[in-house]
């Protein structure tokens, strides 16, 4: 759910791996981020509408990933996937680290890019600067 940069990239990775992929977005223009040879299904619809998820056959899905720009949309859709449709594996992106922790506590698999990237940047800064050739200022 969510065909932004991350959603499109992930869909392509999974499709190349041989998975059956359906990518959902509320905006039909979003699918322009997918390469023309992408063989998965592109579906326009609202991912927090139970009827839309039902039409997609979400109950049959092995996994559901929510990566729209909205933390609350992602959290709501993921909880619906897990608790209404019984999807065995659900993963959800939540930018706000506090909400990420909360939803993790409620049993969702969550990733906070804010937390992950901040940590990565700090690790880079902690390293000795000699490793990188400082060609750019």
């Amino acid at each position: 759910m969510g065909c932004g940069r991350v959603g499109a990239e992930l869909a392509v990775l999974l499709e190349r791996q041989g998975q059956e992929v359906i990518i959902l977005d509320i905006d039909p223009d979003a699918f322009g981020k997918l390469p023309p040879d992408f063989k998965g299904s592109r579906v326009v619809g609202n991912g927090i509408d139970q009827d839309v998820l039902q039409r997609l056959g979400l109950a049959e899905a092995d996994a559901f990933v929510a990566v729209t720009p909205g933390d609350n949309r992602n959290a709501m859709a993921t909880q619906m996937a897990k608790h209404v449709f019984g999807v065995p594996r659900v993963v959800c992106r939540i930018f706000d680290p506090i909400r990420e922790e909360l939803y993790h506590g409620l049993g969702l698999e969550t990733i906070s890019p804010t937390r992950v990237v901040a940590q990565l940047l700090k690790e880079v800064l902690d390293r000795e600067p000699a490793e990188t050739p400082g060609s750019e200022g």
Partner: protein
Amino acid sequence: MYIMIVGGGRAGYYLAKQLVEDGHEVLVIEKDAARCKRIADELGDIVLRGDGCEGITLEAAGTGRADLFIALTGDDEDNLAACQVAKTKFDVPRTVARIDNPKNEAIFKKLGIDTTVSTTALILANIEQELPFHPLIPLLSIKGGGLEIVEGKVPSHSAMVGKRIGELLLPQHCLITLIIDEDGVPRVPVSDTTIRAGDEVVAVCRRESEDALRAVIANPARETE
């Protein structure tokens, strides 16, 4: 009572005004500066500018001592998140969420929200009796057979409510194959299964029996087939 309201639009404004008049301690959390100003100008210092789904904002707002937390923004997902944060992080005893999509009622209940208020459902409940019929939603047309799989919701006034499947007078060539209750739990019906208000009924029927089936589902109790 200390009552927090997330969302200072029209609904939030009038609710806050009424609750202040009734002598409650009220705090409205609103993102938009202009709305905040209007509330502050007219109702006094009872508004905090910020995102009511964020832990930091809710911490600053003293959510931990709130008796009642009401999320009234125009987005169902924001109201859900705000109430979940209030409930889980701050142990607010009672959370109320506004919803636009009436189907979210069951989902929100399952996710721990104490009360949902749906304008759509309220209006529907008031006009339901006057509507000529509840539409059957065609789910699938079976090729070649003239058969359809249709879905219909059993209104509270329906003659079906409280009856067992075995007692129903269904039109010919019509079979109820699945019942999904208001909590979204599906059941395969047997003749002893009792129909309840709000059940979604999925049936296989011939196209020409559809009107008769619709009448069985939607007709009020006083009428007999």
